[in-house]
């Protein structure tokens, strides 16, 4: 009985020992998978714009808002790049008005990677159609502080040719429209 117990114990120890001995790391590799992460942060916490005339006799002036910063962490495969696109993904832009957005180049002071280039001419947002606002993004991170990242400026303005006619015969004023703008960080083909 005692011999049997001792035998099992020895067997167990030897298995344990041999298992431990076989774990030898003489060669290993690190894999960094391609990774894309984008986040929209605003200070204050929302983007709202109001169209109004600056004075009696004046026409409606353009509303602007620069609260939004897009933060990105991107790891690309060698030779690849990414872009940020924007679209209106629900509701519709009020008829007779144009909603535009333009990105500034990334603001992160200590350059950490390849931030690409903002399309400085900006775009006029269209429902369900992605358009490029920043292109050529490589591997980078933009930082996470309030004003880190790509600062976006929205402008909302009447499309002069139709606006007043539309306002007078159409929806008029006193309404509020909620839109969702979606930004996508995707691989360049």
């Amino acid at each position, binding site marked *: 009985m005692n011999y049997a117990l001792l035998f099992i114990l020895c067997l167990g120890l030897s298995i344990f020992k041999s298992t431990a001995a076989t774990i030898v790391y003489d060669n290993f590799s690190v894999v960094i998978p391609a990774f894309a992460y984008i986040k929209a942060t*605003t200070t204050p916490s929302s*983007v709202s714009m109001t*169209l109004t005339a600056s*004075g009696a*006799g004046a026409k409606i002036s353009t509303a602007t808002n620069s609260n939004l910063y897009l933060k990105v962490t991107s790891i690309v495969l060698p030779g690849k790049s990414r872009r940020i696109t924007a679209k209106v993904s629900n509701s519709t832009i009020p008829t007779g008005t144009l909603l535009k957005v333009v990105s500034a180049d990334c603001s992160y002071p200590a350059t950490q990677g390849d931030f690409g280039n903002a399309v400085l001419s900006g775009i006029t947002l269209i429902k369900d159609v992605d358009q490029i606002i920043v292109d050529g993004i490589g591997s980078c991170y933009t930082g996470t502080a309030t004003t880190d990242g790509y600062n976006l400026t929205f402008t909302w303005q009447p499309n002069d040719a139709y606006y007043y006619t539309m306002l007078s015969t159409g929806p008029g*004023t006193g309404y509020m429209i909620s839109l969702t703008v979606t930004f996508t960080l995707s691989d360049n083909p």
Partner: protein
Amino acid sequence: MVLLGKRKYFSLYFLLIIGAHFLSAQNRMPGENAASLPIQLSIPSKASIYLAGSDLKFSFVPGKGTEQILTPTSVGKLWLNYSSLVEKYSTNAICVSLSRNTLPAEILIRLKIGPDVGAGAGMVGKPSGSIILSASPQPIVTNIGSCYTGLGVNKGHLLSFTWEMNPDFDPSDFVLDSLKIEAGVIYTIVSNE
């Protein structure tokens, strides 16, 4: 009982594993490389008026706002500018009244309102032609939708004031230009909802 309990735990673990799998699968979906932002757009109703011209005099009347001072010798021509943003099926109107009813009964002030000259855009108002000023407000431009007239002289509606003798009185009683009298005119823009 004990066996049943273990089975329950087993099912729970199983569900957790399935759930975790779904969560990680969702994290790999495009939601990770897309970000959404809500934007609120609004156009509040607003209306404002402005008077442009030379030799304009104004004074502030507590409780009533700003009044324009007219005398028999003032130029009597000015331009009425306005901006207006209205709700659906709503229009604005601009009214004038005399703020002080201190004119001698022999004297009338006539106001002629010209059409908008077309320097702006939108649904500008319709002029009322010609009125005699009184203490009660009278519309001078009506049916103003969403529009603007432009800002300054030669934009909007030309207003012409003329001082007249009431035809019921003998004109030899007064020489208008020599009278030291003045009238205060108040402009208001109101909504016809």
